[in-house]
C-alpha cells in the first residue's frame, strides 16, 4: 500500500525518464551506452571531414544503414577514441534545413536563383562555359576548389578540367593554408613529404611549436602531446599568449612577423655553441656552409632588437634545442600565412637538419596541415603539380601519366597554372571570364575580400558547387549545383602524417544533391569528354588509378589493396609500396608499423638524396602599422568549435554555443584604457580596405599594439592586406595595419 502511494506521488519512471535511459549496445559493438532511440544496429568507421588530424569516427547506423549518431573510434591510431566537438557534431550539418536539394539557376528576368532540373543545369553549365571559351580562349575558364573533398574527387576534377575541358589556371583553397609547406618541403626535401608520425608528439624531449595553437586548432594532436611520458619541454613561439602558450613550459612572445629573424638567430647561436651535428650535415645535406655564413649576421643583439625578445630568451630556447636528445619542430598557419612563409618554414627545416633532429623518433620539422584532405590535394589536385606529384613541364611525366589514365598525352597541358591570387588578378584583367567554385567560400575567406564582388561582376558565368546555397559565394553565383557532403559519399583523405583513411557513405543526400564525383562525371558527359574518364567509373576505381600513379614516386602506395585494406589496417601511411605489405601482418590493434616516419636512413628525395638549406634575407611586412593605422591585426582560429567560414559548423546548435556568436576583437588592457575602450564595448576596426564592427574583449593575451580577430566572421577579411609569399603564393592573413575606435559604450548609464 505504501509503495502504491509512493509511486503515485513520485513518478520515478515514465516516458520522459525512459527517453534518456542509457543502454549498452547490442551485438557487443563495444560502444558507450546510449538511449534506446539511438541504439545502433551496426557501426562503420569513417574519417572525419573537417581538419587534417584525420580522426576515425564510429558512425552508428540504424537498420537501413542510415547514420543516427557517432562516437570516436577507440582503435584508430590517430585519435585513440577521442574527437573534438566538430567531429562529434559531424552529422549535424548534413541535416541542416538550408541544404540545397536541386540545382539553382539565376533567372535573368527576376535576377533570382531559381530551382531547375539537372538537365537544365548541365545545359546552362556547358553552354555558358563553352561560350566563354569560344570568345576568350580555353584558358579563360578556371576553377577554385578545396581541401575538403576526397582525393578521388579532387583528381577527377583536376583531370576533367585540364584534360577534358582545356583549363590551365586552376587552384584551391589549400593555397590559403598549406601551399607554403608544400613548396618548402619540395625545395628542401625534394618532395612534399611531411616526415613525421603523430607518435613523435609522444616521443619528443622538446616540442617547439611555431605559429601553432594545437590546443584549439588540433586538439586531438594536443592529446598526443599530453600523452608524452618524457616530461618534455614545450616551447610556443607565438605573439599571442594562446591556450597552447599557457599550457607550454616556455612561451616566446615575439613581435609579429619576426619569426624568420628569430629562427636565423637560433641557428646562429646553435652554431656558436657548437651544437650542430656535423656528421649528419656532411653526409645528408648541402648548402650548409653558405647558410652558416649567412646566419653569422644574426647576432643575439640584432635578433633581440628585431623580435622584441630578451637575449636570455634566445639562449633559453637554444639551450633546450642543444641539450635535448629528441627535439621536434611543429608549425601551422602562423608560419604558412606569412609574406616570407616559405623561407620561414625552411628556417625551421634548417634547424632540424643542422641539429640532426630528423628521421629519429620524437624529432622532425613537421608541418601540421589544415584541411582534412590538404595532403590529398597536394598530391592529386592537378593544379601546380601533375597528378601524383609529377611535373607538367616534363614530356616524360606527361606521357607517363597519360599512359596510366589511357588518354592522349597531348591533352595534358605543359604550361604552369596560376595560383589563387593570380587567378583573381586574371579575372580583374579580363583573362579569366568563367569560374567554377567547388566547396569553398571565396567571398568570405579570400584576403582583402571586398574586392571579390567587383571581380564577380567581371565574370561572364560563375558556378558554385556546394552543400548550401546560403554561403556568401553561392549567393553571387549564376548557377549553383547541389553537392552531397561528407558522410554522403566515399573516398580517401590523407592526413597530416601522410595517412590514407577512408570516409564512408552513411547518410542519404537530400533531394537531388549528388556527390562531387557524380557531378564531375555528369559534367564530363555533358561536356562531351566522357570517354576520357571511362576508367573513373567509381571512387574506388579512381583510387586504383591514383595508386598506379603513385608507383615509383616517394608517395608510393601501391601496396594498398583497396578501401577495406585501409580500414583494416587503421589507415595506412605512405610510402606503402607493394613490397611492404608482407611486413604488416599483426593482430595488435595498433601495430608498430602503424606509426612510420620518413628519412630514418638520411636519404632525401632530391636527385642527390641530400636535403637542401634554403634561406633569404628577411623582408619587412607589406603593411606595417603607422600613425594612421597604428595597430597590427592578427587573425586566426577563434575556437575549436568553428571551422573556417562556418558554412557547416554554424549549422550545429551545440557548436554555436561553444564560441562567441558575433565578431569580437581582442585588445590589450593598456591600449584599451588609452582609447577609452571597456570590455564588451562596441568598436569598429578599420584598415585602408574596409571596416569591421566588433565588440571588444580586453585581455593581455594580446600584446600592446596588436589586435586579434577570429577568421570565422566574414567582416575580418575586409581588413586583411593582400600580400603573398613569392614562392608559395600563400596569402599573409596575419599582418595588416588597422585602427580601432569605440562606437558606443555597451549598455552604459
Amino acid at each position, binding site marked *: 500500500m505504501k509503495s502504491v502511494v509512493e509511486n503515485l*506521488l*513520485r513518478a*520515478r*519512471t515514465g516516458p*520522459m*525518464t525512459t527517453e*534518456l535511459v*542509457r543502454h549498452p549496445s547490442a*551485438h557487443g*559493438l*563495444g560502444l*558507450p*551506452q*546510449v*538511449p534506446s532511440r*539511438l541504439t545502433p*544496429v*551496426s557501426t562503420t568507421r569513417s574519417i572525419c571531414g573537417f581538419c587534417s588530424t584525420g580522426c576515425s569516427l564510429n558512425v552508428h*547506423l540504424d*537498420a537501413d*544503414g542510415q547514420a543516427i549518431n557517432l562516437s570516436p573510434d*577507440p*582503435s584508430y591510431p590517430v585519435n585513440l577514441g*577521442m*574527437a573534438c*566537438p566538430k567531429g*562529434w557534431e559531424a552529422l549535424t550539418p548534413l541535416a541542416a534545413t538550408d541544404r540545397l536539394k536541386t540545382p539553382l539557376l539565376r533567372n535573368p528576368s527576376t535576377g533570382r536563383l531559381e530551382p531547375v532540373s539537372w*538537365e537544365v543545369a*548541365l545545359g546552362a553549365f556547358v553552354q555558358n562555359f563553352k561560350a566563354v571559351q569560344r570568345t576568350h580562349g580555353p584558358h579563360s575558364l578556371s576553377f577554385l576548389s578545396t581541401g575538403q573533398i576526397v582525393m578521388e574527387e579532387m583528381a577527377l576534377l583536376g583531370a576533367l578540367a585540364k584534360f577534358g575541358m582545356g583549363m590551365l589556371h586552376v587552384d584551391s583553397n589549400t593555397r590559403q593554408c598549406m601551399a607554403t609547406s608544400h613548396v618548402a618541403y619540395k625545395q628542401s626535401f625534394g618532395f612534399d613529404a611531411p616526415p613525421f608520425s603523430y607518435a613523435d608528439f609522444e616521443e619528443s624531449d622538446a616540442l617547439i611549436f611555431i605559429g601553432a595553437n594545437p590546443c*584549439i586548432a588540433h*586538439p*586531438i594532436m*594536443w*592529446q598526443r602531446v599530453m600523452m608524452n611520458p618524457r616530461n618534455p619541454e614545450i616551447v610556443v613561439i607565438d605573439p599571442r*599568449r594562446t*591556450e597552447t602558450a599557457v*599550457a607550454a613550459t616556455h612561451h616566446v612572445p615575439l613581435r609579429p612577423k619576426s619569426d624568420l629573424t628569430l629562427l636565423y638567430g637560433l641557428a646562429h647561436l646553435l652554431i656558436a655553441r657548437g651544437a650542430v651535428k656535423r656528421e649528419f650535415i656532411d653526409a645528408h645535406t648541402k648548402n650548409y656552409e653558405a647558410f652558416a655564413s649567412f646566419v653569422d649576421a644574426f647576432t643575439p643583439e640584432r635578433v633581440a632588437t628585431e623580435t622584441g625578445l630578451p637575449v636570455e630568451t634566445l639562449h633559453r630556447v637554444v639551450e633546450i634545442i642543444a641539450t635535448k636528445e629528441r627535439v621536434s619542430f611543429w608549425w601551422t598557419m602562423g608560419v604558412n600565412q606569412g609574406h616570407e612563409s616559405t623561407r620561414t618554414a625552411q628556417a625551421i627545416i634548417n634547424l632540424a637538419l643542422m641539429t640532426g633532429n630528423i628521421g629519429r623518433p620524437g624529432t622532425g620539422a613537421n608541418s601540421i596541415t589544415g584541411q582534412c584532405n590538404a595532403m590529398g590535394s597536394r598530391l592529386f589536385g592537378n593544379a601546380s603539380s601533375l597528378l601524383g606529384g609529377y611535373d607538367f613541364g616534363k614530356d616524360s611525366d606527361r606521357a607517363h601519366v597519360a599512359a596510366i589514365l589511357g588518354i592522349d598525352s597531348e591533352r595534358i597541358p605543359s604550361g604552369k597554372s596560376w595560383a589563387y591570387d593570380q587567378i583573381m588578378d586574371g579575372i580583374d584583367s579580363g583573362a579569366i571570364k568563367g569560374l567554377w567554385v567547388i566547396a569553398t567560400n571565396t567571398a568570405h575567406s579570400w584576403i582583402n575580400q571586398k574586392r571579390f564582388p567587383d571581380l564577380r561582376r567581371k565574370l561572364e558565368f560563375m558556378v558554385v558547387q556546394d552543400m548550401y546555397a546560403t554561403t556568401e559565394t553561392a549567393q553571387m553565383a549564376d548557377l549553383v549545383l547541389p553537392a*552531397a557532403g561528407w558522410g*554522403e*559519399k566515399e573516398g580517401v583523405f590523407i592526413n597530416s602524417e601522410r595517412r590514407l583513411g577512408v570516409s564512408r*557513405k552513411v547518410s542519404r543526400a537530400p533531394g537531388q544533391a549528388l556527390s562531387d564525383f*557524380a557531378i564531375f562525371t555528369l559534367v564530363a558527359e*555533358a561536356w562531351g569528354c*566522357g570517354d576520357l574518364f571511362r576508367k573513373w567509373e567509381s571512387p574506388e576505381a579512381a583510387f586504383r588509378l591514383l595508386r598506379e600513379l603513385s608507383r615509383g614516386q616517394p608517395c608510393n602506395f601501391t601496396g594498398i589493396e583497396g578501401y577495406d585494406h585501409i580500414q583494416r589496417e587503421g589507415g595506412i601511411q605512405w610510402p606503402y609500396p607493394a613490397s611492404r605489405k608482407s611486413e604488416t601482418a599483426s593482430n595488435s590493434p595498433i601495430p608498430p608499423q602503424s606509426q612510420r616516419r620518413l628519412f630514418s636512413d638520411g636519404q632525401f628525395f632530391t636527385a642527390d638524396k641530400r636535403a637542401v638549406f634554403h634561406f633569404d634575407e628577411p623582408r619587412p611586412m607589406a603593411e606595417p602599422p603607422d600613425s594612421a593605422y597604428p595597430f597590427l591585426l592578427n587573425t586566426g582560429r577563434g575556437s*575549436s568549435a568553428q571551422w573556417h567560414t562556418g558554412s557547416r559548423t554554424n549549422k550545429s*546548435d*551545440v*557548436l554555436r*554555443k561553444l564560441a*562567441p556568436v*558575433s565578431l569580437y576583437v581582442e585588445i590589450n588592457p593598456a591600449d584599451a584604457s588609452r582609447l577609452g575602450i571597456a*570590455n564588451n564595448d*562596441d568598436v569598429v576596426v578599420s584598415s585602408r580596405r574596409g571596416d569591421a564592427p566588433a565588440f571588444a*574583449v580586453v*585581455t*593581455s*593575451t594580446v600584446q600592446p599594439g596588436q589586435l586579434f580577430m577570429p577568421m570565422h566572421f566574414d567582416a575580418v577579411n575586409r581588413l586583411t592586406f593582400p600580400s603573398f609569399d613569392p614562392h608559395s603564393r600563400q596569402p599573409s592573413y596575419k599582418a595588416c595595419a588597422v585602427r580601432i575606435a569605440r562606437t558606443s559604450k*555597451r*549598455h*552604459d548609464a
Partner: protein
Amino acid sequence: MTDPVRTLIDELIESQRRLDTPVARFAAAHDAGGAPRSQLIPLSAPGPGEQYAFQVDLDSCTGCKACVAGCHSLNGLDEEETWRDVGLVLGGTPAHPFQQTVTTACHHCEDPACLNGCPVLAYEKDPVTGIVVHLDDQCIGCSYCVLKCPYEVPKYNDRLGIVRKCDMCHGRLSAGEAPACVQSCPTEAIAIVKVSTFRSETPNPELAELSSTDSNYTRPTTRYISKNPLPANLRASDADTLRPQHAHYALVLLLVLTQLGLGLMIGSQLSALNAQPLALTGLALFTAGLVASVAHLGQPFRAWRIFLGLRRSWLSREAVLLGTAFPLLTFAALHPLIPELPFIGHWSLVIGHFAPTISIVAFLLAASGVFCSAMIYTDTRRYFWRFSQTSGRMAGTVLVAACAFVHPPLAAGVLIAKLALELSTSRGHSSSARLQQGPLHRQWGSRVIVGLLTLLLFFANHSVMGFLLFTIGELLERTLFFRAVDSPKMPGVPSV
C-alpha cells in the same frame, strides 16, 4: 533515342540514395580492453561521509570543448540542449597574461538549491553516490530550480515542458563505464572522484574563484585542481555581458493580479460605499492571477503534487496558501449575495454569523500567500530579489490597491515609497542597475512615467483611472523584476 546524360542523371541520383545494408560487426575496441577512460572513475562506491564528484584538472583542460559535444551525443540530448558548458576566464599580469578554459556541468551539491526549491520533489540526492538526480516524469515544468541554482545548471526543455540536467551518467558509472564527458576528454582533464562530505572550512576555494559568485552555500562538490595557483584577478570572459532574463509573463500576471485582487478585497472591507463592486473586482483579479499561473507550468496536469514540497519549498507554500485562500475569498466576496438566494432560508443567519471570521481567515491566508510569493524570490539569494525588494514591492502592490478606492492620496503616498524602493535598484554598478539603464531602459522609462502619471491621478482623487494606470505600471514593474535580475553562473564565452 534516349539522352545518355539524362539516363546518367537518373542512375546517379538513384545510386546516391542507396546506402550499404549494415552488417553487425564487433568493434575491435571492446576486445582490446575496458571502455575508454574507465581508469578515471572510482573503483568502489562512496563510503559513509563521501560522495561522487567531478574533478577537473585545469592544467589539462585546454579548450577543446569535446566534453560538451560528447555529453550531447552520447546522452541523446535535443539539438540545442547541452548539460555541460565550457567558458573562459582571463587574468594575470602584463608580464604573465593568463587564460583558462573552465568546463562545468552540474556540481551535484551537498545542499542542492534545486532540490530544496522543487515544489513536487522532482529532485533526489542519491544517498550513496550523492548524485543529484532529476525525475523527469515528476517535473511540472515550473522552472523554479532554474532560478534557484546559482550555476544555471537545470535547462528548460520546450519540447517536453520540463527541465533536464546532468545526472553524472550514473547508469554508466554503475556499469563501470566513465560518464560521457570523462570518456570524451582527449586530455583526461575530467575524472570522477570520491570526496568527503564533512568539511568545515570554506568548501572548494578554486570553484569560488572561478565562478566569481558567492554561491558556495549550496556546497558544490566539483573539484578544480591546478599545479599552479590561479591568478588573483581572474574574470569570466562574459562577466560584463548583460543578459536580460526571461520575463515569465504568466508569473507577472500571477503576482500582480493576486496582489491587486487581495488589495481590492481588503479595500472593500474599509469602504462603505463601493464594498460590493470592489470585492467582486478583487475576486475576479485574484482568480485571473491563479488561472494565469497555470500557463506558466510546462506540465500543468502534474501540478496536483505541488503540496509535496511544503517542508522546504516556498513555491509549494505559496501554491497551497493561495489555493486554500481562493475558496474562502470567494465566500468572503460573495456571501452578501447569499441571503438573496430563494432556497437559502434561515441558513443565511448561520452564514452571516461565520462570515466575518471566514473573511479574516481568507485575508490572512492570502496575505501569507503573498508573503510566500516574496519569499520564493528571496530564497534564490539573488541580490536584486533580496527581502526588502521582493516584500516591499509585493506588499506595496497590495497596499496601494487597498487604498486606491478608499483614500487615493494615501495610495499615492504608498506608491511614492514603492517607486523609491524600485528606483534605488537602478543606480550604481550592479548588473540589475546596468540592465535597467542599458538593454531594458525603455521598459524602465515606461515604468517610471506610468508610475508618475498614476501619482497625479491618485492625488487628483481619480480612483478608477488611477487604479487602471497603476495596474499597467505594476505589470511593467513586475516584468522588470524578472528581466533585470542578476543571474549568477559559471564562466561563459565572450559575448555581448
